[in-house]
């Protein structure tokens, strides 16, 4: 018996490393707990769909299998996120990371883990303008645009509605601060007035004091640059309770079904923007994910699919799953020249790349990466009508 066990153990030990060597792993680091936990499961499914598609097409680099390893970024706890990234890289030996999600933890993982280990990260949703200028050794890319652009678009859609005075409440993290600042700059440049831009902390029971201050400053609408499952929701609740504001401007962090589920038609007329595009790829991905997800057009699902797809195409283009090789090819596969690639056509793209050809990956979000490795940015403008998010257009 004992001998048999030892024999069994020996076979397992001998067999294991060989299996790992063939397998390419991609880390998916998103905030599965924390203030955007209602968005992240769908985002992860988006990325895993891309990986499954490549797997079904026979894998990468001449038949190596690809798989995903999930890790929890928590969205807000930089130490926990760095620890998770460290674990994925050292223990699970991931080749590259699809993630992280929130700007603060993304910056932390980049500086503490990705750069020291030389691992490429493609974030689907970190939008802080500060990440454009962060030192990244060319390892960091994002399929989401910088909030410098989102701030400009938000300022435009507010002005177009004839609203000239707004108050801003932002969540006191990199994302909120960055977006609030870029919005204020654009809005004031366009002749609007920001009566007050004040921070709020996530996870409090009661936001009536914050709302009282915003109401004292006044404004025709309240811009809530926060998170839908946490403080942002609290701010809206307190505003509705006291009748301080009726119209809310909701940027991407607030674009969640959970918000309309909670407030329904009480926030009719509120509007906002989140990354999204009307390129043909978006519809293709929606039909691919229809059975799997309740809302396949949820924010950042397309960006997540694209981030994972870009990682794998760059590996194929460079002929190696090593981050040091693949980082040189991300921009090339994302942009022209080359054959345009939509979701569901990854197999074709891999074939072209294997044959030495070029691809221009369009994906589900109309990927167009500009220096220093971030999406140029296309936004979906939505308004809440009858308690539902309704798309008004794209820009």
């Amino acid at each position, binding site marked *: 018996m004992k001998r048999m066990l030892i024999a069994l153990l020996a076979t397992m030990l001998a067999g294991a490393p060989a299996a790992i060597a063939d397998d390419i792993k991609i880390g998916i680091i998103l905030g599965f707990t924390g203030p955007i936990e209602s968005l992240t499961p769908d985002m992860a499914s988006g990325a895993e769909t891309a990986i499954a598609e490549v797997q079904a097409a026979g894998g990468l680099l001449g038949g190596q299998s690809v798989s995903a390893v999930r890790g929890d970024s928590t969205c807000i706890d930089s130490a926990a996120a760095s620890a998770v990234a460290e674990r994925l890289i050292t223990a699970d030996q991931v080749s590259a990371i699809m993630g992280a999600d929130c700007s603060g933890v993304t910056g932390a993982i980049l500086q503490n883990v990705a750069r020291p280990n030389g691992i490429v990260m493609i974030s689907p949703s970190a939008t802080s303008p500060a990440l454009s200028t962060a030192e990244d050794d060319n390892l960091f890319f994002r399929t989401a645009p910088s909030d410098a652009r989102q701030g400009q678009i938000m300022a435009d859609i507010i002005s177009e509605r004839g609203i000239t005075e707004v108050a801003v409440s932002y969540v006191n993290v990199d994302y909120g601060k960055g977006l609030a600042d870029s919005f204020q700059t654009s809005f004031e440049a366009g002749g609007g007035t920001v009566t007050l831009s004040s921070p709020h902390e996530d996870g409090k029971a009661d936001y009536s004091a914050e709302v009282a*201050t915003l109401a004292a400053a006044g404004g025709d609408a309240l811009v809530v640059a926060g998170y839908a499952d946490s403080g942002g929701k609290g701010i809206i609740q307190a505003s509705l309770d006291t009748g301080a504001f009726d119209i809310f401007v909701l940027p991407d962090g607030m674009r969640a079904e959970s918000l309309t589920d909670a407030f329904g038609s009480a926030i009719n007329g509120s509007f906002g923007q989140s990354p999204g595009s009307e390129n043909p790829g978006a519809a293709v991905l929606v039909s691919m994910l229809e059975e799997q997800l309740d809302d396949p057009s949820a924010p950042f699902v397309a960006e997540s699919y694209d981030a994972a797809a870009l990682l794998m195409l760059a590996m194929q283009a460079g002929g190696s799953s090593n981050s040091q090789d693949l980082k040189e090819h991300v921009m090339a596969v994302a942009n022209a020249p080359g054959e345009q690639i939509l979701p569901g056509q990854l197999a074709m793209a891999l074939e072209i790349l294997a044959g030495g050809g070029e691809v221009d990956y369009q994906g589900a979000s109309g990927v167009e990466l500009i220096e220093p490795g971030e999406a140029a940015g296309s936004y979906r403008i939505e308004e809440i009508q009858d308690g539902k998010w309704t798309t008004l257009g794209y820009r």
Partner: protein
Amino acid sequence: MEAINALVLLGNYVIVPGIAYGSQLALAALGVSLIYGILRFSNFAHGDTMAFGAMVAVLLTSLAQSLGISIAPFPTAMLTLPFAIAGTVLLVIAFDFAVYRHFRSIRSSPVVFVIASTGVMFVMQGLIRFIVGPRDRDLGDGARFVVNAREFKAALGLEQGLSIKVSQSLTLGITIIAVLLLFWFLHRTRTGKAMRAFSDNEDLARLSGINPQTVVILAWTLSAALAATAGILYGLDKTFKPIIYFQLLLPTFAAAIVGGLGNPIGALAGGFVVAFSEICITYAFKRFLAYLLPENLEPTGLVQLLSTEYKFAISFFILVVVLLIRPTGIFAGRSS
């Protein structure tokens, strides 16, 4: 007209929320004060006792909702109040038997009790997270407003609206009832008088034939009932989340100490003093003054003494000032 607008504005953002928050703090502080009066230690587990009561209400509310039981327009949580109180009382008495009784029997010093209560607090926190988890839970259902800001504005033709939530009026009503009951009990019944006698002089009370065990159990029962009520009302008015009750501990103790630990009237007054200080000091009076002052004197800044992030600092500040200037509190309790 300007003056009425100013008054409504202040009512909406300061007076109504202040009264509701003050009542919740007063109920919580009464529980702390009672334990201090009878058992002579500061019960740090009080915040999580409140959380436990609210948690029972959350669980029973979802059970009642799934069975289709409701008392609309009142929130279902009100129906669960007696059960939540019963559950919390049982838990607290179980902790007394398991922990505090031992320290009483060996006549430990108060500081040992305080440390023990901190331990109990951690156990309770774990228990609550084990049962419902750390997330937000919505406790409120039924009608939301007694007076809706938008309708109020339209009906009276004012610029400012006043909103009074069902949870806020329930808070005030239940606090009044609970306090009247408590004072009637302490001053009019034989057992209540025995408790006060025990609080004034333990040895003398024992000599007069008052059973200390009964008094202790009663004190825990009253304190737990107050805690559960305060916890549910706070959860209804704001939101139920386990961690916020721990954060309430500081304002609660500030309230109890301002009024004078061990003094029920003091705890009541202290609750309102702390609540109104927190709200008034962080309120921006810009609009209010704009209504009252002549046009050329209108303030350009927010006229806010402290920004809202410093809310908790106010409780600390009040605590420090009271302990420095009048350590026994406004109503001369027994903090020695």
